[in-house]
């Protein structure tokens, strides 16, 4: 062992923790090396000092305080055990009540879900074809949608299907106000309040005609029910027969309506690039000129229908402040994820928090004029 090793071993040497051989070596070295002898002495003294420090006495209350806490712990444990092992007479009724409570709660929750949203159903237009594969059915619906200017058929529409059916946005050209509507008691479904839609007068007679023409399809309704993959809501079908319930349904769904998100819209498109159906294009472009700033959401809807998707303005980031919501009507979109500003065609309408349009922004739409300040201006 060299000098350094010995130094390092001095600590153990003092503790008698070295082997006999090591001890011999160290002691021999110490006889010759004054430095190491000094180091040993200092180390010994240090340990002496350390040992000389007296221990502090625990306060008199320490044991008692500890035991108080310990007893409390023990008490808690006992109580818990006892609770687990209550006599059966007490436990059984408790458990029965708990079970009952859970059952009742579950039932209430279930019944509080809007009955219409419980099931999904394809819209009536697709029912002329029976047992068609899903894709073909969708195709059929789209075709029908293009041919049939969207009449509103609340009694056939199942709201649960909304998010899948892109065409749905054209089901409600009218505002969702049921109060102004004449009831359906006369058997002929109306397109909704004709009064607040002065500009669409031309379109309406068409709608009425096709509505009447399509009505004979109604009897096939029950059979179409069977095709639905969702649990057949035959009860709902019968319930909808009453006109008043139809109205109520529309209100409900309107009230609970949340704007479709971009994601849902994208999902509803089967193939890209996407081209809006002619009817949609015709309707929006045809009535675009009548949209004006300050117009209310409902008015806009009555003119050009519901948007393809919507969102909160703040989501757009700067320079858009949290100034309300925006609606988008898409005419062409090349890709699902990335917007192609050069080629995509769409219409954006911004509504403030009181539901009034303050910016109408057509993009790549021929002949359409922007209305309202650009974002970030005048604020």
């Amino acid at each position, binding site marked *: 062992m060299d000098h350094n090793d010995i130094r390092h071993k001095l600590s153990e040497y003092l503790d008698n923790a070295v082997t006999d051989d090591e001890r011999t070596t160290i002691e021999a070295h110490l006889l010759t090396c004054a430095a190491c002898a000094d180091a040993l002495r200092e180390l010994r003294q240090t340990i002496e000092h350390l040992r000389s420090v007296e221990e502090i006495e625990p306060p008199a209350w320490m044991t008692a305080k*500890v035991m108080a806490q310990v007893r409390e712990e023990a008490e808690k444990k006992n109580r818990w055990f006892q609770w687990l092992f209550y006599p059966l007479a007490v436990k059984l009724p408790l458990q029965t009540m708990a079970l009952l409570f859970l059952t009742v709660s579950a039932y209430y929750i279930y019944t509080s879900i809007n009955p219409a949203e419980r099931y999904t159903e394809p819209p009536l237009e697709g029912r002329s074809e029976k047992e068609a594969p899903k894709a073909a059915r969708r195709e059929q619906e789209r075709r029908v949608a293009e041919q049939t200017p969207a009449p509103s058929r609340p009694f056939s529409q199942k709201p649960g299907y909304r998010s899948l059916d892109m065409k749905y946005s054209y089901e409600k050209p009218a505002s969702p106000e049921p109060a102004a509507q004449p009831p359906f008691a006369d058997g002929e479904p109306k397109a909704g309040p004709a009064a607040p839609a002065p500009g669409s007068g031309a379109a309406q007679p068409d709608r009425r005609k096709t509505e009447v023409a399509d009505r004979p399809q109604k009897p096939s309704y029950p059979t179409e029910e069977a095709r639905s993959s969702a649990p057949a809501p035959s009860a709902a079908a019968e319930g909808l027969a009453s006109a008043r319930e139809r109205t109520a349904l529309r209100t409900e769904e309107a009230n609970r309506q949340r704007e479709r998100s971009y994601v849902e819209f994208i999902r509803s498109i089967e193939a890209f690039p996407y081209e809006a159906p002619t009817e949609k294009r015709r309707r929006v472009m045809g009535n675009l000129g009548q949209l004006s700033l300050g117009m209310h959401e409902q008015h806009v809807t009555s003119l050009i229908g519901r948007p393809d998707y919507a969102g909160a303005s703040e989501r757009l980031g700067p320079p858009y402040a949290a100034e309300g919501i925006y609606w988008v009507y898409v005419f062409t979109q090349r890709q699902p994820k990335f917007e192609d500003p050069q080629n995509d065609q769409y219409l954006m309408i911004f509504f403030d928090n009181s539901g009034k349009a303050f910016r109408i922004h057509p993009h790549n739409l021929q002949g359409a004029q922007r209305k309202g300040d650009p974002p970030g201006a005048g604020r």
Partner: protein
Amino acid sequence: MSYPSEVINGPAMDPDAPLAAAAQQGDLDAFESLVAKYQKRMLNIAYRITGDHDEACEVAQDAFLAAFRGLAGFRGEARFSTWLTSITVNRSRNRLKQLKVRRSRVPMSLDAPLRTGDGELLPDPASGNPSVLDRLEQRDVASKVQGCIQALEPEFRAVIVLRDMQDMAYEEISAVLKLAAGTVKSRLFRARESVKECLKKAMGRL
């Protein structure tokens, strides 16, 4: 003669085994005896590691309570005292960490020495600062020693306290701190050297 560590620290040689077993069964008086027996040792360990009297009292109480809660899991693989000491050292170290964080947030001025609960002067652990050591010189040996121990890093504090202040055997220190024997020895060496240097400066000569 020295026994192998498993024997020394194992249940065969645990004088507390009967009491611990009784306490496990729910005998609270047995547990009280254990508390009374070890409270001084645990308090002092906590005091030397945390450097604060009040904190040490709390830590010691917490340690006993934790031991009571953990009794069910104490299978007697180690001695009861070893196990209890382990709990105490860990809690002391954790408390020390918290205290250090708290203190570091307070802007320190060298003219206003940090006082611990019992008026001890705590030197800045990072210092070889002469003014701090000057103040140490005014104290008696015990306070100087305490001051020098406080200047050590926590892991060095633990070994030197257990060895040179509580007279624990290497094997037991190994078991308490869960360190290999070699590590215990080297740490002890370095801790002692540090204290030695610190005391030399504080006392002029040893």
